[in-house]
């Protein structure tokens, strides 16, 4: 009998997904587009927000949506109505998107258009607060939505997603007068686990806060898009 052996690996458990995510990101970078991974619990208002944002930004940017939420055909039609292509991603009832699923969605997208013409690619993740944050899909920015109807302790109960987000949108703020929650407390709890992310309260119904959210988005697109001789300007 041989001596027992031990190999030290020190490898990320999700290395296989990580490799695919990096591959996706190489494509996004080659196409010079910004990819957003939009995450939330079910019913936080992702589709309503997307509908408003796509309509408001359609004049400024060429966009497409990879739709991973198990929404109805009606939702896709609502989004397509503003002239933005929506490609459904087959999730196989998974509770999150992974990089391979997004890669499959990109293949379908490329049958419809040339992604190099896009400025902004929205990936709408499966409605779930637990695990989408652990599975990178190649995105440049993670955006988490939290509806005021979910209460103010959600960021403390499901902290990983809020920790990982670059931007947290507090949605449905038009409902605040009818709810026993305070916006300040929700925001403070997000800050407890992620002190430096952008936190933007919005309402897709009243339109409040959308301008600030779109300004944030524009800054992100500008940050990755032009490979201009910026090195000379930035200190």
């Amino acid at each position: 009998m041989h001596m027992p052996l031990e190999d030290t690996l020190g490898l990320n458990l999700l290395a296989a997904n990580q490799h695919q995510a990096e591959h996706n990101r190489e494509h996004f970078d080659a196409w010079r587009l910004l990819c957003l991974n939009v995450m939330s619990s079910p019913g936080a208002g992702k589709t309503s927000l997307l509908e408003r944002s796509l309509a408001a930004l359609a004049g400024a940017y060429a966009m497409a949506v990879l739709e991973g939420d198990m929404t109805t055909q009606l939702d896709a039609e609502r989004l397509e109505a503003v002239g933005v292509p929506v490609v459904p991603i087959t999730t196989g009832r998974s509770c999150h998107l992974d990089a391979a699923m997004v890669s499959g969605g990109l293949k379908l997208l490329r049958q419809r258009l040339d992604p190099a013409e896009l400025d902004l690619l929205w990936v709408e993740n499966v409605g779930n607060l637990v695990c989408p944050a652990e599975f990178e899909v190649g995105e440049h920015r993670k955006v988490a939505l939290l509806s005021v109807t979910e209460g103010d302790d959600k960021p403390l109960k499901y902290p990983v997603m809020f920790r990982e987000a670059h931007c947290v949108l507090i949605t449905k703020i038009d409902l605040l007068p009818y709810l026993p929650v305070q916006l300040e407390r929700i925001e403070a709890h997000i800050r407890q686990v992620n002190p430096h992310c952008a936190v933007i309260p919005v309402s897709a119904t009243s339109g409040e806060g959308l301008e600030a959210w779109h300004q944030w988005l524009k800054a992100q697109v500008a940050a990755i898009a032009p490979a201009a001789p910026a090195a000379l300007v930035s200190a």
Partner: protein
Amino acid sequence: MHEVDMTRCLLLSMNEWKQQHEPRIPRVSQVHLQVGSFTCVEPDQLVFTWRVAVQNTWLDGAELVIEPVPLVGRCVRCNATYSPDPEQAYRSPCCQQPMEEIVSGRELRIRSVDYAFSDHPADALPAATPA
């Protein structure tokens, strides 16, 4: 459950590792993982899905051993480390600062693999033939 997808990722890594030993087939007794408590992984669930997934494969019988890694934060004001508590909104007990720096607790890592090569001739390297 996302543990199924995590197990799939883990098996892909194990298959790659096995290829490094070809043509010999390592008999794996244990796979050691480090799993941080500030992740969305349920260790028991992961062990369960692993057991089901490795049945009738080259990893049949290999045990998944999970070493939990506690969440440790570092206070940005005084640099002390602390155990962030959700009941206290993860703030540092020393200076009441929010959880800014995480020292540990985000790990999802394959640490090591315990294995052996059996003496079965089919598994052994072919003996060098004299020229």
